[in-house]
């Protein structure tokens, strides 16, 4: 006969407001097998947990039900408490009466009845639970970092410094990410390359870091501690060890395409150096731009290369690596400006994005720091900066705030005035959100300095008049409409997840949120973890943020990864499949459907489960026609009882 204890949590007023928890406890007390039932304010508190421990001992319980918030919140907390009192931790079940009852229903009677049914269903589940012991598993000690921007680099260095080896995969030909494109960074106005390149070099030289650029992750199999990753190394057609950066190949190349590093403001050749501080420090042949490599259509670059670095026979290489943890730091892109048709984004050459502006003011950029209009090359004397281009617009574009634009636009305005002291800078803003350390002081200096004109109002339209642009806006503080003529418009474009994020998330079995950013396990308390154990996220791939936050998340993700990589053994959940040898006839259907090859029919004619490979997905249990294989503690008989109780068919 079961001896089950039921604890119904008020969660302050969160549950109590809608569910009569006292009545739930009183009703459960009468339920078969329940020997104790009580309700309390906060079951997750120390007092609440002590109640569980005390009652287990006093009443010699063999099962516990806590009716409270969703299991994802506190099931582990409660199971720890139960274990401390001597009850096997797998004999505790949580009934979700908060997220799935009190917070979504309003009728007290209905909600209370439902809470009673859900609590009873949990009692039925725990009634059928057995003692289980976690399984100790060996694991890999290397880490995979996907993405070689500032976040990926930081994470790689942190993990490498802990003594664990890292494979850093970057899809572009060089690491560095968008930070390498920036001119100076706010609020310190540090030169971006100066603070970034030492990290890039450290990552490339670190004895524990293997750098795989121009490479992509194509498949991930396995589980936390034992991932098997398939990586495709795309051919650069240039031997990086031989290339001496002489530039002869680029000079003779007949093909010109838009240069990515300069955001399309300049051209590069098909064979090119990504940027001066590129790491690996080598030219790269873009086979999509090239006239043809297989068969050779041109061959001029190979002809002029003195050191024989160019090899048209390079082929993609597919490798498989075993790692224990994965950190995803794949960064952001800017929202495509051509979505902002009213601003002429993507259409008017003199309407540029913030990243394009970074390249324009950069002393080594396509304009050598001389601000010129992309259309006719005339000097820029007046500029309009537009905040929130694509952000904070739930109706038509992105609903969220991209966080960094207010501060970098103030920076842009400052840089403009430095370069063109007699120039006119107009900033069209809705709010000024400069919340980082030092940002408010930095921005206020520019805003109140009166050298830059800050206009509170959205821009309605930009018209290209040929030799200038006209910006239609409004000054909401004075109530006046405005039409300003400028030479250049800079759009603070919304940040979006980088191209390929959605596919990569699928490959890694992690989720993306409603805006396509990688989804964290818990927004407040677990910002760098995902719901897939062993896979962590960092940087702008998780959501718009600045460099300090990106670096902080990278180190946080690294810490999480290190915890796995340095564990003695990992613990594998025992909620795995088990075979009833009395019923198994060796038909083999379970073996055919298992996605992990975790169950096989042995020569004895009975199916046998390899518990370490099994993840308890239950497909075998659902496919077995004889019901001979079931998931421990989630057996069909338990579910059958839960169904009956949930439907209230047993009053």
């Amino acid at each position: 006969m079961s001896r089950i204890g039921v604890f119904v949590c008020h969660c302050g007023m969160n549950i109590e407001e809608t569910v009569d928890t006292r009545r739930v406890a009183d009703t459960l007390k009468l339920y078969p097998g329940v020997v104790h039932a009580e309700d309390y304010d906060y079951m997750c508190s120390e007092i609440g947990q002590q109640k569980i421990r005390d009652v287990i001992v006093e009443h010699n319980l063999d099962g516990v039900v806590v009716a409270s918030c969703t299991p994802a919140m506190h099931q582990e907390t409660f199971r720890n408490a139960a274990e401390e009192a001597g009850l096997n931790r797998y004999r505790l079940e949580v009934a979700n009466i908060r997220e799935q009852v009190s917070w979504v229903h309003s009728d007290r009677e209905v909600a209370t009845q439902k809470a009673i049914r859900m609590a009873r269903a949990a009692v039925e589940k725990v009634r059928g639970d057995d003692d289980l012991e976690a399984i100790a598993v060996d694991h890999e000690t290397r880490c995979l970092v996907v993405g070689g921007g500032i976040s990926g680099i930081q994470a790689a260095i942190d993990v490498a410094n802990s003594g664990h080896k890292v494979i850093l995969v970057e899809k572009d030909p060089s690491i560095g990410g968008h930070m390498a494109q920036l001119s100076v960074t706010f609020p310190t106005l540090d030169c971006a390359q100066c603070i970034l390149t030492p990290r890039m070099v450290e990552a490339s030289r670190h004895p524990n870091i293997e750098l795989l650029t121009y490479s992509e992750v194509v498949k991930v199999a396995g589980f936390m501690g034992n991932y098997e990753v398939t990586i495709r190394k795309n051919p650069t057609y240039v031997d990086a060890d031989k290339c001496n950066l002489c530039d002869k190949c680029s000079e003779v190349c007949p093909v010109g395409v838009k240069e990515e590093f300069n955001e399309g403001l300049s051209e590069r050749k098909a064979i090119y150096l990504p940027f001066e501080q590129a790491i690996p420090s080598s030219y790269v042949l873009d086979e999509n731009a090239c006239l043809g490599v297989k068969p050779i259509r041109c061959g001029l670059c190979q002809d002029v290369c003195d050191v024989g670095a160019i090899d048209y026979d390079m082929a993609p290489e597919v490798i498989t690596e075993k790692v224990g943890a994965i950190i995803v730091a794949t960064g952001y892109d800017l929202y495509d400006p051509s979505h902002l048709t009213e601003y002429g984004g993507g259409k008017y050459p003199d309407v540029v994005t913030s990243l394009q502006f970074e390249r324009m003011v950069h002393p080594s950029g396509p304009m050598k720091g001389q601000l010129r209009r992309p259309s006719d090359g005339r000097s820029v004397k007046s500029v309009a900066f537009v905040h929130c281009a694509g952000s904070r617009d739930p109706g038509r574009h992105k609903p969220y705030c991209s966080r960094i634009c207010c501060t970098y636009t103030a920076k842009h305005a400052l840089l403009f005035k430095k370069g063109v002291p007699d120039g006119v800078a107009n900033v069209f803003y809705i709010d000024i959100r400069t919340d980082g350390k030092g940002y408010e002081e930095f921005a206020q200096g520019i805003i109140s300095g009166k050298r830059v004109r800050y206009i509170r109002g959205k821009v309605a339209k930009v018209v290209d008049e040929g030799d200038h642009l006209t910006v239609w806006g409004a000054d909401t503080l004075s109530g006046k409409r405005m039409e300003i003529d400028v030479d250049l418009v800079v759009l603070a474009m919304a940040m979006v997840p980088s191209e390929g994020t959605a596919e990569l998330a699928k490959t890694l079995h992690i989720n993306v949120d409603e805006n396509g950013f990688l989804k964290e396990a818990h927004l407040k308390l677990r910002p760098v973890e995902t719901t897939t154990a062993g896979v962590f996220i960092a940087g702008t791939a998780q959501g718009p943020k600045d460099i300090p936050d990106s670096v902080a998340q990278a180190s946080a993700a690294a810490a999480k990864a290190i915890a796995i990589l340095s564990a003695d053994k990992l613990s594998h959940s025992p909620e795995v499949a088990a075979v009833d040898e009395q019923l198994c006839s060796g038909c083999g259907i379970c073996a055919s459907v298992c996605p992990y090859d975790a169950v096989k029919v042995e020569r004895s004619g009975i199916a046998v489960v390899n518990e370490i490979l099994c993840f308890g997905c239950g497909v075998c249990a659902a496919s077995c026609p004889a019901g001979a294989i079931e998931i421990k503690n989630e057996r069909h008989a338990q579910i059958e009882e839960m169904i009956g109780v949930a439907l209230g068919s047993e009053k």
Partner: protein
Amino acid sequence: MPNKKTLAIYAAGGCGGCGQSLLLSPNLVLLLDRVDLLFWASSTSDLTDEEISAYDDRGIDLLIYAGTVRGNENIATARLLRAKAKRVVAYGACAHLGGLCGLANVYSGAQLRALPSADGEFVQPLSSVIDVDYILPGCPPPQAMVTRMMEELFIADVMPEQGTVFASNKAVCAQCDRKHVPNPLSSVRRFHTAPPDPEICLIDQGYICLGPVTRGGCDAVCLKSNRPCTGCAGPVAGVRDQGGAILHALASLVSFPGTDTEKKEHQVLDSIPDVIGTTYKYSAASSILKRRVNDGK
């Protein structure tokens, strides 16, 4: 010599195959020597309810009931026989599960009543109308099982436990010698198109075989004759709904991973021509759904 046990055999609606399975048994003569056969309706005689009523309550030691329960007449007779018997054996698939006749349950009462000879009522397994002590599955019960029943009921000193099924608790696969060549089910093959390889598991070859869900103890005779198991002995111990059990096994085997749509899977599943007739061939009347309902459609 102890008093002979009294035996009565009653055949309700059906094909007569169960009666033949008894007649074919090499042990029949031995059996008849050990029992006092009160009546064998309808193989040797016919019997009215009045004549059955004449027996004492619990006066018949063992009653073998073969055939369907359909209609009030069957129900009444079954209840009457139950009252007159100490132990009742549900003999054969019709009594055990409703049998092939149970497939009629997918038609509505109106459709059935429109048939000239039909009673117009739904088929039920015997255990739905009376308590059943023993079950001998099969359509007809294979000789291996018949022999086992005879040994346990008539030769052994102690009566077997109530609820005994004279078949294996495990599926037919345990007795089938075919080899496995694990294969996702990429197309369903029909027996009339090509005979299967006699050495390899039929499901692995794409043929539908109910072996994995069906009680063994029959020595897998059908499989050994290069025919599939059609499920006549009913589901293995612990499985309530035979059709549901095999259909979820088959459905799980159809898999074309890597595609984002289910078109290919649906094509394969659609190629099973008669899902009920295949998966619930003998057990429609004892499935969870039991019989047709009127649900608006």
